[in-house]
């Protein structure tokens, strides 16, 4: 099913439509009416969604037809090159999009969630002043996310990567009048930058590895994959120390993914990102953007497959994040904060999925999570909308009376995220857990997969517990917020509608990935197979990962039972403690001692922010302060700015002294200039002499220098006694080796300046003595009769 490569189809329309919508809303948003604004926004996303469906359905049907016959056939891959973006030397990057099963799934999720959330926003943000800007940002975000997903090579993906980061920043700080919200936006941006930097490094490393190789040079995913297939030693080569290049590149890429997808240690921005409007949290910080890291790892899975070390890093970080974030979620009292940590935790699940080579499972969970987590956020938004904007669970309770629709949807989401059997979360989480159990890659300890599984199981229990704690605190028990909000109210249909749709999906989405062991129709396993086609690593070498083995039916059933049990235990625990509002039992446990410490640890998020503050921010501030004092204050302010000013003033003072408008000052200048000309032309040109080898011997040439008359009397001393030799006169003298001492003196008696000596001859006016080293080719003093004759032309 190899689709036409390099052909212009309509793939580019998918990201272009939201971008056009963003352009309209960001430029004309102030002038347009609210109806126009959200019409443009929602319509552009809806058009984008339907285009995506139209693009995907055709190949999907073909593949399904083939699948029914037992073979999927060739991998579906559509590449669309718009134009060459960068071309430097042999480095060539196209602006190209790529549609394959992986990106098909992603664009469907992104455009669908985005469409629902746009719709929801029209209700949630109806009183917002900067309506156009809000929808412009949302559209821009969707466009960027689609570029990220569809990018056929790493640089294009990076455009989207940066674009979603920018929109995330803009939307977190959307209410920037609030200082704390603006700070949260900045924090998200800065933390993301760290990840982006690592992503860039990984990208450069891959370019460095594949440059000059046939098929390389473009950072195109297909090319990179083909390089790994044809010349695997490229990724296997030892790069630094004893580390392999694939490991280094993958760790760099994973740090980038950890920044975007909020993994340890870069997760700290996500809880703060809840400062943004709730639909934004639903769209960006739950359903789509934060999954970009998972997507990217899945997209580059063929490189990760070369390094089980990097995969171990990914899986371990994912598992730890899942655990730690779940723990932190226990004691949060803000509705959205709980959901934020839940998101971090669920992303950890996904990373365990990609880290264990269970790409399909990870993407599966990504999809189901997108639905129920978006629903949870939208539900939380609905609750907060009903509670006049407050998200504090301590003043809620018993809201099922006031918000019946929201409550039902919320219940379904909570069932899904807890992994209640036959909900979507059940299937996807089970897929990841089973993958972790089965993982036994080269170089991993045999128990490592099981360890990961155990950690995830604990995290899953925790997930069920904190989500149901949340549910009970919000919707069950007596209403505690009468003092603050007298009459909580249900939201308008634009908000409830998406909730219902998402709830329906949260239930049924799991049936596209039913495990083999369960009774199923064949279309239920089609999608994972199809998806697996595009993320299946092509390489299984010495250091590479192994394809996850199929577990026995018994094992699968047992694992499934364990996961279900974990979810039910969590739900039961929450019900026991919080069914009637805040638990007195818990209050007693945490009144003092280790319980109190544990509560504080969870509530204060393990003091990670404080740790970063002390370890990173403070030293950085100190450094910045020092640099400010030294570079800015001293170098720039004092030396450059004031120094320049000082130089200018000094110069102008001097020139003012010269240009004082008085004729005589100018005359002084003329005189000084004349003198300078004289000084220059009569600069020291002292009498001297040179020598060079000639056939007859060595030739000495006197140059009298300025100030000495041409007819000056020139005499020489060649024997080194300090007196002029007899007969050695004239400005050119030829001597042979042996006739010349090591020091030769030139005497010049100027008839004008040389005063008369006692003998009536002019006294030597000046003399020059130089140390003479004869050139090697000078002949020695053979008995030639005229050898000593001085040549005086």
């Amino acid at each position, binding site marked *: 099913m190899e689709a036409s490569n390099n052909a212009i189809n309509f793939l580019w329309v998918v990201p272009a439509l939201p971008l056009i919508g963003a352009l309209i809303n960001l430029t004309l948003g102030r002038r347009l009416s609210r109806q126009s604004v959200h019409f443009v926004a929602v319509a552009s996303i809806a058009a984008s969604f339907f285009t995506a469906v139209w693009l995907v359905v055709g190949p999907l049907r073909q593949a399904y037809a083939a699948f029914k016959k037992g073979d999927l056939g060739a991998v579906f891959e559509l590449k669309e090159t718009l134009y060459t973006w960068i071309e430097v030397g042999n480095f060539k990057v196209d602006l190209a999009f790529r549609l394959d099963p992986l990106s098909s799934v992603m664009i469907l999720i992104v455009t669908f969630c985005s469409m629902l959330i746009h719709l929801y926003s029209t209700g949630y943000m109806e009183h917002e002043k900067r309506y156009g800007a809000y929808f412009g940002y949302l559209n821009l975000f969707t466009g960027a996310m689609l570029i990220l997903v569809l990018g056929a090579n790493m640089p294009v993906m990076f455009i989207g990567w940066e674009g979603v980061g920018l929109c995330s920043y803009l939307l977190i700080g959307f209410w920037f009048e609030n200082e704390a919200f603006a700070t949260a936006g900045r924090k998200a941006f800065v933390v993301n930058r760290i990840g982006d930097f690592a992503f860039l490094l990984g990208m450069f490393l891959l370019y460095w590895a594949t440059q000059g190789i046939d098929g390389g040079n473009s950072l195109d995913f297909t090319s990179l994959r083909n390089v790994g297939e044809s010349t695997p030693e490229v990724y296997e080569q030892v790069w630094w120390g004893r580390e392999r290049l694939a490991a280094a590149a993958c760790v760099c890429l994973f740090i980038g993914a950890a920044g975007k997808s909020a993994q340890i240690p870069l997760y700290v921005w996500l809880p703060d990102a809840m400062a943004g409007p709730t639909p934004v949290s639903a769209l960006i910080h739950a359903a789509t953007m934060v999954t970009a890291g998972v997507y990217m790892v899945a997209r580059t899975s063929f490189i990760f497959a070369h390094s089980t070390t990097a995969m171990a890093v990914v899986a371990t970080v994912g598992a730890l994040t899942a655990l730690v974030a779940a723990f932190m979620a226990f004691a949060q009292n803000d509705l959205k904060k709980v959901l934020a940590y839940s998101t971090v935790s669920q992303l950890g699940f996904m990373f365990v999925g990609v880290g264990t080579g269970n790409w399909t499972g990870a993407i599966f969970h990504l999809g189901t999570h997108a639905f129920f987590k978006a629903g949870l956020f939208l539900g939380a938004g609905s609750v907060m909308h009903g509670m006049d904007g407050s998200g504090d669970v301590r003043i809620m309770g018993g809201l099922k009376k006031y918000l019946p629709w929201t409550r039902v949807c919320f219940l379904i989401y909570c069932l899904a995220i807890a992994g209640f059997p036959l909900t979507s979360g059940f299937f996807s989480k089970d897929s990841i857990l089973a993958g972790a159990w089965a993982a036994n890659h080269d170089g991993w300890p045999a128990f490592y997969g099981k360890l990961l599984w155990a950690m995830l199981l604990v995290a899953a229990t925790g997930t069920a517990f904190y989500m149901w704690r949340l549910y009970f605190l919000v919707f069950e028990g007596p209403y505690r917020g009468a003092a603050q909000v007298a009459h909580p109210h249900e939201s308008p249909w634009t908000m409830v509608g998406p909730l219902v749709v998402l709830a329906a999906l949260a239930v049924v989405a799991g049936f596209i990935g039913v495990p083999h062991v369960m009774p199923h129709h064949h279309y239920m396993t089609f999608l994972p197979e199809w998806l697996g086609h595009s993320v299946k690593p092509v390489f299984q070498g010495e250091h590479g990962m192994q394809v996850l083995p199929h577990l026995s039916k018994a094992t699968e059933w047992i694992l499934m039972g364990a996961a279900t049990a974990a979810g039910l235990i969590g739900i039961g625990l929450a019900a026991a403690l919080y069914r009637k509002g805040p638990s007195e039992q818990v209050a007693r446990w945490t009144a003092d001692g280790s319980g109190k410490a544990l509560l504080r640890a969870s509530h204060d998020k393990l003091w990670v922010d404080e740790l970063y503050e002390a370890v990173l921010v403070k030293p950085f501030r100190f450094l910045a302060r020092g640099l400010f004092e030294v570079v800015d204050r001293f170098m720039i302010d004092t030396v450059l700015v004031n120094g320049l000013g000082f130089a200018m003033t000094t110069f102008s003072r001097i020139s003012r002294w010269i240009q004082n408008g*008085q004729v*005589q*000052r100018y005359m002084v200048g003329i*005189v000084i200039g004349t*003198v300078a000309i*004289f000084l220059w032309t009569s600069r020291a040109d002292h009498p001297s002499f040179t020598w060079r080898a000639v056939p007859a011997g060595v030739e000495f040439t006197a140059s009298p220098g300025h*100030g000495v008359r041409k007819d000056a009397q020139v005499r020489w001393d060649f024997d080194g006694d300090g007196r002029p030799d007899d007969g050695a006169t004239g400005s050119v003298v030829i001597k042979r080796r042996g006739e010349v001492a090591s020091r030769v003196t030139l005497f010049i008696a100027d008839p004008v300046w040389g005063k008369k000596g006692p003998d009536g001859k002019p006294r030597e006016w000046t003399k020059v003595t130089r140390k003479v080293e004869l050139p090697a080719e000078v002949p020695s003093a053979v008995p030639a009769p005229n050898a000593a004759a001085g040549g005086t032309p």
Partner: protein
Amino acid sequence: MSARRVTLLSSRFVVVLVVGLTLGLGLGGLGLGGAVGVPSAAAQAAPVAIKPPPRSATPAGKQVSDRDVVTRRDAAGRPAAAGKPATSKGMAIAFWLFAAITVAGSLFVITRKNLIAAVMGMVGTFFGLAALYMMLYAHFLAVVQMLVYAGAIMVLFVFVIMILNKPEDEPYATTGRAGKAVAGLGMAYLIYRLAAVLVSVDTTVTAPQLAAPATTAQGYDWGSTAAVGWNLFNDYLFPFEAVSILLLVAVVGSIAVARPLKDDDGEVLAADGAAPGGGA
């Protein structure tokens, strides 16, 4: 203007007149004679009138009666015999005298507070220079020097001084002393260098150089009006014409600059000449 100043002016005036005019004129005449007599025998000190330039085109033989001719145009204009000391005490005395007048006059110019005195020093300098020109066989230029400079330019100066008629409080410009000191040092160095170079050019004057120059190819005496005129109107015609245009421009320009300012109605905005209340 105070009475004291008037007496000063008058006394200086007399001094300058004596020094400038009598010495300048008299010794200028001596200079002429000296110049003519340089190449001749030693005791040639008496002023001799300038001879009319030879009209003849034939250089030799025409003026044998004149005693100078022998030396001057010996052997068809060839230089006089080499090796003889071609100097004379008379010439030396004349040179030193005129040089002293020149220098003294010029010092007078730059030191006098009284402008008229300065002008008179200037006149003395010009006369001394004219005499020196004579010694260099530049008869025509000497006459032009006296006519133009002493006759015209100085008179112009005197007129302007009379118009302005403004006593000076402090004659020396006191601003920028440091710069002027530097410039003074520079000038001293310059004179030293110049003297060194000039001296090194020639000290022992060779006979061909000091000998009276031959007549020109056209048969005119060297330096005579005819010779200079021939040269000027043949070899340097273009500069001559250029100078004539320059003079025309200068005439027009000076009139334009110096005429009284009038507004559009012809009313005089600033009167020419004497300041109100200006004396003398």
